[in-house]
């Protein structure tokens, strides 16, 4: 308990930084759920692929150390790569694993099975990425570029941790600032997109009433593709933030993070964009507090217990579920 009180602000701010990562991934779950009523179990893999793409591209362009503007440039490259890769994977996922089911009107449980299958496939494909090269005897060359497939790949860009300013007694670092700043930019961007643009209106229309939306000339398939791309891009951004905070990524890093992000989405009210954000931040902070009180090994237990308790009192999450009604 003392640990919590003595480090309250540090725990709060690092919690918010982790929360931002959860929140961005949660947006993907919530968007897809809002439009398709589907738990996109493979979304965690979308996140993971974005992270690897960022690692590889930075390695390839030799981005290891830089200062000032150089760092900023490399970060922009990292974000762009990760978001593009994740969006692409999400799009492929939708095309291969979900579209055929939608055409056949399959029940939701079947879509979940397909999602689970896609999740296994994607993460194992990453875990086996050396295999095709092994057949040509090239796997040793490959290690230099993409790391050992079953081991963690480190983020190549070293950013020196600098303490910038105090929030009460916590000295906020540049990493915290980058993560939180980037997250807030993404969130505002998405919020504005969904609530103001024509395509965003389409998303809300389909979420509210797919049939009427179709009658009104909204192209449902396009809206669905769009939600996967948006959710994927957010997950890609989250992956870079994760790399900044944690420093490495593995072929199976997505799973537990995905479960937590989904928890965050449910916590806030699945299908509700602002709920996902709120849920993510609450989860990140609560985990940190819980960790301080009960010890680091109980971190995940705290997260899930929180979920169960909140669902008991608010069965539809904190903000209720409505992608249609809530403006982002």
């Amino acid at each position: 308990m003392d640990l919590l009180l003595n480090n309250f602000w540090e725990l709060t701010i690092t919690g918010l930084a982790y929360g931002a990562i959860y929140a961005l991934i949660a947006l993907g779950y919530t968007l897809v759920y809002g439009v398709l009523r589907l738990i996109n179990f493979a979304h965690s893999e979308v996140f993971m692929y974005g992270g690897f793409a960022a690692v590889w591209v930075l390695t390839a362009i030799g981005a290891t150390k830089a200062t000032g503007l150089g760092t900023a440039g490399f970060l922009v490259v990292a974000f762009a790569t990760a978001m593009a890769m994740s969006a692409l994977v999400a799009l492929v996922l939708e095309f291969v694993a979900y579209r055929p089911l939608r055409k056949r009107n399959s029940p939701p449980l079947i879509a979940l099975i397909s999602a689970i299958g896609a999740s296994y496939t994607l993460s194992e494909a990453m875990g086996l990425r050396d295999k095709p090269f092994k057949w040509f005897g090239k796997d040793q060359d490959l290690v230099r570029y993409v790391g050992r497939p079953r081991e963690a790949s480190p983020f190549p860009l070293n950013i020196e941790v600098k303490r910038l300013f105090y929030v009460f007694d916590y000295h906020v670092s540049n990493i915290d600032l980058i993560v939180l700043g980037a997250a807030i930019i993404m969130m505002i961007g998405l919020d504005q997109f969904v609530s103001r643009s024509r395509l965003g209106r389409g998303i809300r229309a389909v979420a509210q009433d797919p049939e009427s939306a179709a009658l009104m000339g909204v192209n449902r398939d396009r809206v669905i593709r769009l939600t996967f791309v948006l959710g994927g891009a957010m997950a890609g951004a989250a992956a870079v933030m994760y790399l900044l905070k944690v420093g490495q990524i593995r072929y199976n890093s997505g799973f537990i993070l995905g479960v937590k992000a989904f928890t965050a989405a449910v916590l806030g009210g699945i299908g509700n964009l602002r709920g996902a954000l709120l849920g993510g931040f609450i989860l990140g902070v609560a985990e940190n507090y819980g960790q301080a009180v009960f010890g680091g090994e109980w971190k995940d237990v705290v997260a899930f217990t929180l979920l169960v308790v909140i669902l008991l009192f608010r069965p539809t999450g904190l903000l209720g579920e409505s992608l249609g009604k809530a403006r982002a």
Partner: protein
Amino acid sequence: MNAVRNFLHGVGDRFRALPRWAKIVLAIAAAVFVYLLPIINPPLITTTDSDFGAVLFLCALYALVAIGLNIVIGYAGLLDLGYIGFFAIGAFTVGILGSAHGNIPLLLCIPIAMAVTLFSGIVLGAPTLRVRGDYLAIVTLGFGEIVRLVLVNADGLTGGSRGISNIPTPPSLDLFGVPHLVWDGFVAKVDLSNQTRFIQFSVTDSIPYYWLALTLVFIVLFLDWRMQNSRVGRAWEATREDEDAAELMGVPTFRFKLLAFATGAAIGGLSGALFATKQQFINPDNFTILYSVLFVAMVVVGGQGNRWGVILAAALLTWAPEKFRFLSDARFLLFGLVLMALAIFRPQGLLPPRRSVRAKRADEETEVLEEGAAHV
């Protein structure tokens, strides 16, 4: 795929049409054959890279798991993604009472393990079964993970990540030896040098455990059948079909959902206990969430609601990776691809429940009649 299903349903139809005595004889013969599988070691089926008896034990164990989870998912329509949690609680109850903190004999541990899991099923279900279906999925997923984390972290009770060893075996009763068959191509020979003691439970021979697991499968199947063919089974089905309408027809839906959830949990606990006594050593790594996912896949792939379907799927999904061990690394990749392919091309599962097949046949017959070309 269709051919396989038609064949299996055809077998089912023929079997149902037989006179009672023939049914009994055939059923006994089939049961005896299944019991003797690890002794006969039929070519093609027998796994070459891993111990066939051990593989069969796992098949029977997971069949038990699938029957239990089928009650929850298939009958009551509750998506439980944390089934491994109950399995783990069952296993660790036996470990804790039988080895780590007590020396209670196994035969007493098992009912206690079932009671503990039944209780935890009620504790988890009572608050969560009121929330909507999708949430249940995530809450149970969280539960499965919490159980594992508690096992890792509660050092004093569970031995933490070191786990528990020396878990008691069932009492042995050494009566006689059963020699195995060996096959030279398609010619069988009796191998007197390789015998399974009937019935001695030991680390070296998995076959007696297989027999035990199989016996439990038959017992649970029988009870499962009795439940399904009663007011309880009807209430589950009605609840799954339309919860509000069921409630308005006088079905206390919450109570029945809880019953299904807790019954499933108890069967999960039984399976876990069986796993613990076979392994004699357990640690939290045996109980990761991926198993929950695998269990759900067994039920859905088998055809939710059909007990024979889920048993078939459980056995197939356990046996195939062992049989094709040479693919070792790519097993999970293939597993993922197979799940996707099944979802897309065979959404009703390998062997969907009788009912929907019957309905489909009725539809087809009507169609034929409407075309004025009635023939049987």
